[in-house]
């Protein structure tokens, strides 16, 4: 994985000291909160419901054991012994003290990490496929491109004050594990007819109060012009994006209002201009970055054989491991969705353990997924049983990946000052209601996504089943949505009808899953049956 050079390290270290001085001035009264707020937000420090919350960037969800262990250390030393992995492959801490934040950031910097650009109207953490570099179905490793975008977007002077926040995702396979088309810019690496590597650009996707699936605006951008094309996309947005209305300021609104064709025309015009400026990064720099993402030293003789005589292990292998590009290896996903647990939360001890296991079994590398789980990307199949036993002892071996209890949930009203309703208790109760693993597997792949407000951090629009929390005269109410997908078959979920109480929405979910089992045809997932049968039948079942 990528390692900082002297410039990266210097930038991060300098920022830590700059922020230390800003905090000092704030505490001394030299800065008002109005003056200080944008400065702390630029360093990922929010004021949330109970305390300051720090969001730490994990570039494209990739980190090593040392970095993971530092996340555990921060949970212990500066927080309340846990962290929350987020839907943007980051981690958040909920109980940070302002006076300790500079020391925390210095600790992070010591392992090449930071919280820069995890807030504010700038280009946020670049997200990617958690299986990058390991999966057999990709045409190239997207991580070097994600890293190139990270470097380009870090402290980019032109794009530090965009009309609104801006999110990139980069993938390199036809299977979309990163909700790529629900980003401001989604990039899919592709080959053209000549076999050259390039990128397909999707611009103007997003969730929030106006969810949109990004349209494709260009089928092929030569790889060495990817940054210039991204810059052209941003320039048009920066020039014409709405700054007068926060709710209409995202690029999706601009693309929608201009129309895909007109937006694309302007981007192409800007791109032609960019090419004249010669702003593409030097080939040598991409080559330097790419070297960091070379394959680990696989044992080419590693066996594909697996002893599956332990039935619980066999279930975990079947559900939580994925095919690897290297024979004898597997991609293992650690589910952070234990029965009745809080999606995405991990204690410092669990974080430490995952760091240890990465070092021992996965060439010292981990990935955070947008589904709030952790991936060990390079596990020898012969090590899987020992790995599973250690995970199981620590409560980290739920065999529920992509099943109904592997839900995404935002922090909701338990932590977030924007939320209207609590999300986590719903995830917990659904996890209990559907605890039987046999029943979950019978239901098959079912993406359940829960948001506590219309900002959609829980991706409810992209859930096969989504839940949106609303405030109804001071009482929590939950709207049920059906039919969304954040995958390669991206679609936006629709609201079924009037909302429910907490128990009512869980009953409604049971009703729709029962209907699915009754209606499904061979091989159909929930989403397939929903699309074939249509909303009306589900509404009838729910509302009578």
């Amino acid at each position, binding site marked *: 994985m990528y390692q900082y050079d002297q410039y990266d390290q210097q930038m991060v270290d300098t920022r830590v000291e700059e922020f230390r001085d800003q905090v000092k001035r704030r505490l001394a009264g030299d800065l008002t909160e109005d003056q200080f707020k944008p400065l702390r937000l630029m360093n990922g420090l929010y*004021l949330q419901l109970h*305390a300051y919350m720090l969001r730490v960037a994990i570039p494209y969800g990739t980190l090593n054991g040392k970095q993971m262990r530092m996340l555990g250390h921060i949970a212990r030393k500066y927080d309340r012994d846990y962290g929350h992995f987020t839907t943007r492959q980051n981690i958040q801490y909920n109980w940070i003290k*302002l006076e300790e934040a500079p020391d925390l950031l210095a600790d992070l910097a010591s392992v090449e990490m930071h919280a820069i650009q995890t807030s504010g109207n700038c280009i946020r953490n670049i997200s990617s496929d958690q299986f990058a570099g390991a999966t057999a179905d990709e045409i190239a490793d997207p991580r070097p491109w994600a890293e190139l975008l990270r470097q380009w977007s870090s402290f980019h002077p032109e794009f530090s004050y965009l009309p609104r926040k801006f999110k990139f995702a980069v993938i390199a396979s036809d299977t979309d594990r990163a909700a790529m088309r629900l980003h401001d810019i989604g990039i899919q690496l592709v080959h053209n007819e000549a076999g050259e590597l390039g990128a397909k650009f999707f611009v103007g996707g997003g969730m929030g109060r106006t969810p949109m699936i990004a349209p494709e605006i260009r089928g092929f951008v030569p790889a060495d012009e990817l940054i210039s094309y991204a810059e052209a996309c941003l320039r048009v947005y920066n020039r014409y994006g709405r700054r007068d209305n926060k709710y209409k300021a995202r690029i999706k609104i601009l693309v929608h209002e201009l129309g895909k064709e007109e937006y694309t025309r302007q981007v192409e015009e800007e791109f032609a201009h960019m090419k004249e400026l010669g702003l593409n990064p030097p080939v040598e720099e991409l080559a330097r970055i790419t070297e960091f993402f070379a394959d680990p030293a696989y044992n080419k003789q590693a066996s594909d054989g697996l002893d599956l005589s332990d039935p619980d292990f066999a279930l975990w292998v079947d559900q939580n491991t994925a095919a690897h590009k290297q024979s004898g290896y597997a991609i293992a996903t650690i589910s952070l969705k234990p029965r009745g647990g809080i999606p995405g939360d991990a204690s410092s001890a669990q974080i430490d353990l995952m760091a240890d296991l990465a070092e021992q079994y996965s060439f010292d590398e981990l990935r955070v997924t947008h589904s709030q789980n952790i991936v060990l990307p390079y596990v020898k199949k012969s090590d899987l049983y020992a790995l599973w036993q250690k995970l199981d002892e620590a409560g980290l071996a739920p065999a529920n990946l992509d099943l109904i209890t592997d839900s995404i949930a935002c922090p909701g009203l338990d932590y977030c000052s924007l939320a209207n309703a609590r999300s986590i208790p719903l995830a917990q109760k659904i996890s209990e209601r559907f605890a039987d693993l046999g029943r979950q597997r019978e239901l098959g792949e079912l993406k359940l996504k829960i948001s506590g407000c219309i900002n959609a951090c829980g991706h409810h629009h992209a859930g096969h089943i989504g839940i949106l929390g609303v405030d109804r005269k*001071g009482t*929590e109410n939950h709207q049920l949505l059906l039919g969304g997908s954040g995958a390669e078959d991206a679609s936006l979920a629709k609201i079924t009808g009037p909302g429910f109480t907490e128990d009512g929405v869980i009953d409604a979910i049971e009703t729709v899953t029962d209907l699915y089992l009754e209606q499904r045809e061979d091989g159909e997932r929930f989403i397939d049956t929903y699309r074939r049968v249509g909303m009306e039948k589900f509404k009838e079942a729910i509302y009578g």
Partner: protein
Amino acid sequence: MNIITGNDLKTGDVIWWTGLDWSRFVKDATDVGDQGEAILHREEAARRVNAPYIIAAEQTDDGPRPGHIKDRVRALGPTVRPDLTLKPADPDAGEWVI
């Protein structure tokens, strides 16, 4: 009744105006009547509180109960982590929020 809440500038802790000082416990909050704006401006300027605001609350036998669920969650702590609330020994404390 009207009460004032905010966050401790240094620690971020949720705090409530008692009439003389700030407390972690909503039961200590006092009715500020129509003096709220003046108090929060004064206290914010003194850097004893961050982002203070006035809320409506109901006086009960157990002390003030904020009118909105969001402020009741703030007063107690996350309902999904009873161990991290201000009443860690009471696993049913979350019921007060709802």
